[in-house]
């Protein structure tokens, strides 16, 4: 069993894929930061930001449908921002009542809500393009380049490596439980047990997973020691950035700076 589909990396031959991971990483963060710094209701800048990420999506060959589809995943959280439509003071647009309640939609409230939803949607697209066009080992290189400590990067690497192994184990546990969750032919029996019993079983599965994780980490430790590990995390030096990468980084940041400038000083 392989949970391949957990790995978000999609291999394509594209400009975005071939861009140095460090550049992509920094540009993605800068893009999201720019989006966050853009004031509410700055619609023209939102449009330009969206156009930028759309261009990146197109250049990545990932498919617009794929990126937009995945971007919808982050949408449920938008509910959290729904109340501002009614609570932010401002000129009233319309109001309606549910029972005794009267809800008034204010213009500034609506604007802020739409702004938040748009910002969130545009940002998540950028994150998707990054994750889908960059293999995780390259992301780790980018993390090191921006100064994440080696020890933490090493933990990230181990987690990524074993994520799939343990996700497979979790999946098999779930299957084993499902396989034994049957219904007797005798009528009148209450299926499924009590909620606390079911929770305890799920907890047992978690404990089982943890325990095997512990024991596996012991074996991994031995395998590391057998190859010279001495408690210190050592890594090969980062390869230098090419001139082209510097250029891409510079021009990307310049575009974002212009967008931000537009948002404030148009």
């Amino acid at each position, binding site marked *: 069993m392989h949970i391949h*589909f957990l790995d978000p990396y999609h291999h394509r031959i594209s400009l975005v894929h071939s861009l140095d991971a460090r550049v992509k990483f920094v540009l993605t963060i800068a893009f999201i930061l720019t989006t966050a710094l853009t004031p509410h209701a700055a619609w023209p800048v939102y449009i330009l930001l969206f156009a930028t990420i759309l261009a990146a999506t197109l250049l990545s060959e990932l498919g617009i449908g794929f990126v937009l589809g995945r971007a919808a995943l982050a949408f449920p959280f938008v509910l959290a921002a729904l109340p501002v439509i009614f609570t932010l003071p401002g000129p009233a647009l319309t109001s309606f009542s549910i029972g005794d309640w009267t809800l008034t939609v204010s213009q500034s409230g609506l604007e802020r809500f739409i702004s938040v939803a748009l910002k969130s949607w545009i940002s998540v697209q950028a994150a998707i393009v990054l994750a889908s066009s960059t293999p995780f080992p390259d992301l780790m290189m980018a993390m090191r380049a921006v100064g994440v400590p080696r020890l933490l990067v090493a933990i990230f690497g181990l987690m990524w490596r074993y994520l799939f192994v343990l996700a497979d184990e979790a999946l*098999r*546990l779930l299957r084993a*439980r499902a*396989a034994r*969750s*049957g*219904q007797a032919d005798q009528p009148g029996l209450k299926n499924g047990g009590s909620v606390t019993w079911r929770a305890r079983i799920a907890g047992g599965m978690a404990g*089982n997973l943890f*325990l095997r994780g512990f024991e596996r980490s012991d074996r991994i430790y031995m395998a590391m020691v057998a190859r010279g590990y001495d408690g210190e995390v050592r890594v090969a030096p980062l390869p230098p950035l090419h001139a082209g990468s510097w250029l891409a980084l510079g021009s990307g940041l310049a575009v974002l700076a212009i967008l931000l400038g537009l948002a404030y000083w148009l």
Partner: protein
Amino acid sequence: MHHSIEVDDLYFAYPDGRKALQGVSLHIEPCEKVALVGPNGAGKSTLILHLNGILIGKGLICVAGLPVIKSNLGKVRARVGLVFQNPDDQLFSPTVYEDVAYGPLYQGLPPDEVQNRVSEALETVRMADYSRRVSHHLSVGEKKRIAIATVLSMKPEVLVLDEPTAGMDPRARRSLINLLRDLPITMLVSTHDMLMVRELFERMVIMDDGRIVADGQTEVIMKDEALLNAHGLEKP
């Protein structure tokens, strides 16, 4: 019609597009014991996961007289005992007793009936005095027996095992083979252990690339070295 497995023209693809089953048909009579062999990735485990509706593909499956469809899943799962390869994936309760009791408890059986089921199942796998033990500390062979007991306690009509002897030493393997021989129940066993196939099963089925490529008497198929080699198998 009871206690049988009937699979007709089954197709299944994983979400990533991998076509794991491409038209599988297989009929097993009540109390027949059949071995399922084939190279890694042939689709054996995938087929097995269809037999109690953990995966649902396109095609018809009837197990123990019940069609495997959404509305039947509860009943089907009580009738089919599925034992996976790694017993560690199946023993998620602290003690052997609780693990063997999971199925009966889930079905909502009364406490003394649960108790009976557990003792009986442990008796069958000859582990009666292990019920208070912590599963984690048992040997591979012992864990495997307990895993079998966890499904026997549901009194299944059909037993399906995925690679039961993998990773066992010869002694544990021998005692498992004897146990399987003595269970009077319909059985489908996926394995790479050709010696066990020859010893235990009169009928064997070869899968490769999502299809059944041979189905017949073990004696006959084992002699056909060209066929075995063509599907990455070896005569024992």
